[in-house]
């Protein structure tokens, strides 16, 4: 075989190998979800329990809540699974989603340095803690990335009665990053940060950080699941997507969520309405 033919054949082979996986995929849906949910490890535990009996592969693209919803707005996902009720309602109102259904909740925790310069450790009033942090100008890291966690953080500052725009100083570090990177930043800066419990429990680079405030009802974080509207995006895999939603809201799915534990501790609390 001449060298040219060999060259062409190997090119062809290379292309086919690169393309192969697309053709070999059976049935699958694309779920836009959040980095915090992915990094908590929930999907790794939960999804096989749906995929095996149904034969539908669930492909999770993990982004911030804002990004996940934007992705779905462009029609690049079949289902969204995020935790920002206000943004989700807006998504439905725009006509991008069919219906919003509650799936589960977890909670946020306030993380801070062990030497606690703002003296908030041990408390269970998040508004009070935030006011103390602002007053003492202690370092605080924000995600700043339109995520569900970021939205919750901004809501809590408002509840605490603090106008961030006016009071933002060099103590408030807006990093524009995901939960993990933001925690990395907080760990190296010895700063306070609001995090979801799931990511925190899985986070390995804690350095001097620990949970300082938890349990406040206002720290609860509600997850919703939405089917992307096939009327607006005709290619959406409606049947398979709905099958996944039905499963996650069913007794089996809800129990699977409750059974997910890290170090014996339950992370997510199923609360689907029947």
């Amino acid at each position: 075989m001449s060298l040219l033919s060999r060259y062409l054949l190997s090119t062809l082979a290379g292309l086919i190998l690169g393309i192969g996986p697309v053709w070999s995929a059976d049935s699958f849906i694309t779920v836009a979800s959040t980095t915090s949910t992915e990094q908590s490890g929930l999907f790794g535990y939960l999804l096989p329990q749906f995929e095996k009996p149904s034969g539908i592969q669930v492909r999770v693209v993990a982004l911030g809540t804002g990004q996940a919803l934007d992705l779905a707005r462009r029609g690049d996902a079949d289902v969204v699974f995020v935790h920002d009720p206000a943004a989700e309602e807006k998504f439905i109102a725009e006509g991008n989603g069919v219906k919003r259904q509650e799936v589960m909740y977890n909670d946020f925790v306030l993380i801070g340095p062990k030497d606690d310069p703002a003296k908030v450790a041990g408390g269970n009033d998040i508004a009070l803690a935030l006011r103390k942090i602002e007053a003492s100008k202690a370092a605080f890291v924000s995600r700043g990335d339109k995520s569900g966690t970021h939205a919750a953080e901004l809501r809590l500052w408002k509840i605490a009665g603090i106008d961030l725009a006016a009071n933002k100083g060099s103590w408030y570090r807006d990093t524009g990053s995901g939960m993990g990177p933001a925690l990395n930043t907080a760990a190296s800066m010895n700063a306070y940060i609001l995090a979801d419990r799931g990511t925190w429990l899985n986070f390995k680079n804690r350095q001097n950080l620990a949970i300082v405030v938890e349990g406040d009802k206002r720290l609860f974080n509600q997850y919703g699941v939405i089917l992307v509207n096939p009327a607006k995006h005709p290619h959406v895999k409606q049947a398979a997507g709905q099958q996944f939603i039905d499963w996650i809201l069913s007794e089996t799915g809800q129990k699977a969520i409750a059974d997910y534990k890290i170090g014996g501790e339950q992370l997510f609390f199923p609360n689907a309405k029947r």
Partner: protein
Amino acid sequence: MNDLPASLTTALGLVAGLDARLLDIVALSLRVSLSAVLLAALLALPLGAQLAVGNFAGRRTLTVIVNGLMGLPAVVVGLLVYLLLSRAGPLGPLGLLFTPTAMVIAQAILVAPLLTALTRQTVEDAWHDYREQLHSLGATTHQATATLLWDTRYSLFTVMLAGFGRAIAEVGAVMIVGGNIDGVTRVMTTTIALETSKGDLPLALALGVILVALVLAINALAYVTGAWAQRKLG
């Protein structure tokens, strides 16, 4: 840096244990980047040779543009390809987003300017030596291009290795167009990014060590093969 010894141990453990998920991720990384380089070369090698040898209007402008595109950030390429392949975009109906094919396309676009620019320089240097003789023998531009590409094949092989290195090391493009989906579009660099963001720095570093070792091994193999071929075939 005190994580380094721990990471090396972890790396060795992962490799020795032939962890199945790791092997899948490595295999996918290799397939995507190799395909991307081959795909880009199909366009870049002839184009680079034309830029060196050809005599058409706008040649110098095109050369400058190609050189400039070498500085395209991977994340920008990823963004552009995403907008192209998104359902809301022109190529949406192809359904290529979040697949390895999308990653191949993105990386091919990323390395094409590099391959073109280096090919152009390589061929231009050879053209300087060959030009008069090829003209004397009556070679057309097309024939000269083909001859130069074949004659500089060993240098061009190194050019391809450079492209491969650029492709397999990038994370910005494949993250956006691939979505880092577990078991589908997760490659070495996106896994390293993920583990870093989870705070598991030793594991991320270990994967980094494996990636570097892999690329070194490939380059060593390429070098040996090239030297053998040169000795045997001239």
